[in-house]
């Protein structure tokens, strides 16, 4: 009896502390008055070289099965990503660089990807010296040293699914590079057998990691099953070796213990979480640690680790079984060992409706396997192994990735597909159309449920003139919402605790430029929080603080469907408002 009473006491005490904690604080959350952090200083010179590690396929199985169990027992909830700056964006770092959207990129620039202006591997200029190879497995390949001085990994298509694997490797690298990730330069190359020359010291590894001589017979075995162009040339994806020294893959959870720059747990990094939507877009179901690579690079005498993503050979529709089977219908909807799905199906006797129960072969199964647009469910997409970072994705992380995806125009996609150099025009058309349709499905899903507003700018025509706050509506720009049914309601609050409503207004998009909207800030000259402050008040005085809530409706009703909150400091009529923070809550309460 006493022990039961003790347990009750402990539970009540915990509850009380928790509720007290919930009630603590003055309720005012303010961003500091300072420039946003755009560069994460994780390039500190390393004093010791990190160790080299290898990928673990079995760890992926453990992470898919046991980690979810541990997470369930921890009763954990998804927490906000850590490496997000005050404007709800990701700073540049050794993981990510803001590219498309942060700075305009032409379709040609996007299509060049990580290759930049460096000329591609030239099949007219040989010989290509084979230094190592991988004759076995589902994706055989060769490592060559080319006359241009670079080393390349040549990845070949097999006899099935024609040009998909090499196309996917190139398309994936271009998209991820434009999005901001560090990736190798991948390009399609078609070469004659005769350009290859086997180095006397060429090696391959057997299944147990032992070095064996690479022989001409091995080369013949690789080339015998390789997909060839109509001209008889061998088609390959040539992946230029990344600069630096390879250190092996990074993990999607935790930090690398021997890298002192790596202080943000990887599952708490927004760019890794958000890459799930890029993976969903191109159907990259094998986004796991085996397809990552840390490189120790030297910049100006300073060595640090750069984190790369690579190998998209599974994207654009690779399948689990070579003939179309119901198993392939599971790709993208569930993994090999998703216990949450298994338990649900077990308990519900299989009655829970699953998309893979009724899936038909997609239009181009012989090339693009399971790659289509209609079966994509953006918020439900899954890889075959559970990715620890993907599991932690929040709506804000997804929306960040969506803002990047929204910046890929049809022209960008066409230029990327052109780099895949598919010989069949119908296949190229199908690929481009499907990428566009999948992009639009992702945009439609997220931009009609969360705030579609982006690109907030403050502007004025002259000093002391009224400022304007302008924003871009990505849903209208992407045509997943209509101007006629879109409405914005803006509330401006001020004061130390944002308790004062300084004004509100309702706007509809300008039919002439529906995706770009501006409004005055403040709404009237006297409706600014700093107006009554004494002269000489500090710039960061809490009384200067202002919060603008922009509610957006996309349906013909007045109920708000999304909210973005902008935070300002009012520095006075002369200097104007200063944008210091952006929040995009997913919990939208209808404004009063």
């Amino acid at each position, binding site marked *: 009896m006493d022990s039961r009473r003790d347990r009750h006491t402990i539970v009540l005490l915990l509850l009380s502390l928790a*509720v007290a904690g919930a009630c603590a604080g003055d309720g005012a959350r303010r961003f500091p008055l300072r420039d946003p952090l755009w560069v994460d*200083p994780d390039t500190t010179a390393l004093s010791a070289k990190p160790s080299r590690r290898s990928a673990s396929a079995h760890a992926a199985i*453990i992470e898919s099965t046991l980690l979810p169990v541990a997470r369930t*027992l921890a009763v954990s909830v998804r927490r906000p990503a850590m490496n*997000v700056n005050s404007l709800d964006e990701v700073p540049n770092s050794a993981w990510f660089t803001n590219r498309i959207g942060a700075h305009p990129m032409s379709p040609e620039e996007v299509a060049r990807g990580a290759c930049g202006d460096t000329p591609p591997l030239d099949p007219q200029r040989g010989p290509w010296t084979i230094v190592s190879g991988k004759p076995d497995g589902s994706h055989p390949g060769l490592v060559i040293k080319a006359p241009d001085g670079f080393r390349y990994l040549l990845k070949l298509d097999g006899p099935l699914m024609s040009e998909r694997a090499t196309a996917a490797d190139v398309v994936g690298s271009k998209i991820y590079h434009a999005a901001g990730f560090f990736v190798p330069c991948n390009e399609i190359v078609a070469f004659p057998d005769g350009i290859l020359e086997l180095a006397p010291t060429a090696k391959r590894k057997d299944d147990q990691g032992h070095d064996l001589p690479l022989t001409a017979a091995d080369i013949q075995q690789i080339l015998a099953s390789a997909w060839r162009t109509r001209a008889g040339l061998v088609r390959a994806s040539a992946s230029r070796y990344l600069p630096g020294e390879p250190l092996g893959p990074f993990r999607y959870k935790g930090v690398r213990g021997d890298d002192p720059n790596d*202080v943000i747990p990887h599952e708490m990094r927004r760019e890794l979480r958000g890459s799930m939507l890029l993976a969903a877009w191109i159907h990259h179901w094998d986004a796991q640690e085996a397809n990552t690579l840390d490189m120790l690079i030297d910049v100006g005498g300073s060595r640090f680790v750069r984190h790369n993503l690579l190998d998209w050979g599974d994207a654009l529709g690779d399948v689990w079984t070579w003939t179309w089977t*119901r198993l392939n219908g599971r790709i993208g909807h569930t993994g090999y060992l998703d216990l949450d799905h298994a338990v649900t199906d077990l308990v519900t006797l299989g009655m829970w409706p699953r998309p893979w129960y009724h899936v038909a072969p997609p239009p181009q199964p012989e090339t693009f396997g399971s790659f289509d647009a209609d079966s994509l469910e953006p918020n439900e997409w899954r890889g075959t192994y559970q990715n620890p970072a993907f599991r932690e994705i929040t709506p804000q992380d997804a929306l960040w990735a969506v803002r990047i995806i929204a910046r890929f125009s049809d022209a960008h996609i066409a230029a990327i597909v052109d780099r895949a150099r598919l010989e069949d025009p119908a296949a190229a058309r199908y690929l481009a159309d499907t990428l566009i349709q999948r992009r639009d499905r992702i945009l439609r899903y997220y931009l009609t449920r969360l705030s579609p507003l982006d690109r907030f700018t403050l502007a004025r025509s002259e000093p002391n003139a009224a400022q304007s706050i302008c924003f871009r509506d990505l849903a209208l720009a992407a045509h997943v919402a209509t101007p006629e049914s879109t409405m914005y309601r803006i509330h401006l609050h001020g004061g130390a605790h944002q308790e004062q409503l300084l004004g509100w207004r309702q*706007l509809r998009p300008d039919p002439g430029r529906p995706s770009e909207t501006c409004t005055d800030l403040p709404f009237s000259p006297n409706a600014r929080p700093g107006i009554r402050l004494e002269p000489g008040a500090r710039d960061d005085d809490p009384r200067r603080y202002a919060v603008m809530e922009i509610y957006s409706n996309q349906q013909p009703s007045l109920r708000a469907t999304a909210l973005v909150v902008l935070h300002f400091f009012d520095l006075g009529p002369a200097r*104007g408002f200063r944008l210091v923070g952006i929040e995009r809550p997913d919990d939208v309460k209808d404004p009063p």
Partner: protein
Amino acid sequence: MSPGFSRRTFPLLLLVSSTAFHQRAAGATEVNQTQDSTQGPPLEPVAPAPPVAPGERRPVPDYGRPPPPPPTAREAFLWVPRTLLLPARLTTEYVLVRPTLAFARWGDQHYVFRRIYDFLTWDNGHSGVYPTASFDLGLKSTIGLGLVEGAFGSSNNSLHATVSASTQDVLAFSAQDRLRVLRDGTGEVQLGGGYVRRPDGIFYGTGADTRSSDKTFYSYETRALSAGMSGNLGGLHRAAIELGYRDTRIGGSTIASDTPSLDARYGGAGQPPLPAGWGGYDLAWSRGFLVLDSRSPRFEDSGSGVRFDAGASFGMSPRDPDLRLLAWQLEAGGYYDLSGARHVLSLQIATHFIERIGPSAIPFSELPALGGQDWMRGFLAGRLRGNSTLVATAEYRYPVLALVEGELFTALGNAFADHLADVSPGRFFLNWGVGLRTTFARDTGIAATIAFASNRLDDPAFRIADATRISLGVIHGF
């Protein structure tokens, strides 16, 4: 409210604001644009960060976001289950997850798993040895090894062998050579033999009136040889003929203190006589069966169809020419796929008969029996024995994982006298249970089953779960 916004001016401000449907073209972003925008970072490269002292890590940057809001009441309440589950969580995390992950990574880094696989397999994985295990609550669990040699002497010939054992005198091994005699692999000749020695044969008596309290154990040792020919008739239709010989020794068993040996309850003064076959017998037999099954062999097709199985066997003892028997069976099943995606409801009925056609009584171990992995799975193998059996099973199977099915089943069945002479509705047992099984192949797989068995339906003290069976191991058949 601050002095600037009195109760009188505030509504006026609201009125002014609310009536201003005001917007300006985006072209107003002209001269003297302020610095604050989301245009992104500067394009110029940034100088490297200053070094960190050896052994230290750089501090986590200040990303300029305010601390998160205080937890809501719902988030605070989550600490209750978190606290209650903390021991389980810590155990899972530090005893299971982390060591397993570390072992997996170490094993992959040193190619341990690959080396084990390469050691156990050859011929590109077409041949190899594999571990086996069998667990059946109430019987002796076994572990063992299986061998498959895919090209034994020739590419058309394969050898399959198993050996299993456990503590307390359990040993079994078998070997079978399979020769494909038709080019398309539809015909096969088999030659095989085996040995089994176990102390946990169960005997509850024969006929319809057995009770759970009648349980006894016996030990047996069987040596067997067989040869046969089978053919695939298209799809899942198949036929086979076999002949063979087995020599069985039967004796007492004292493996369990709470369950008597068979000869402690039979054969004594005032006790029923020992069952026929006690001590041992040998039998030369021949058998033929035909299976007609309209279901598609492909798992991705619908699971609907019908199945009909008929078989007969004849046996004669070389040592006791008076022992001659004829056994025959009929099985029928209907399968309906509710969704087309392998949510299959089925009803299967089976009846088995045996006839004594010589003067000697049929050994009890040759009688048709129910229980085990095929029929009446709530009972151990051999629970129900008689000159005839009748059983009906309703089952529902559905996909759970990519290659795993769940199943629910219920069955009514019992053993009876000759030709089901004493069948009546109340004389059946009810079985029911759940299970999981793999679907790598139709005929074999790994199955886990939890099943329950009632006592007889007409028992005044009817109990729906009079016995429990938990099993895990390799299964054969549908």
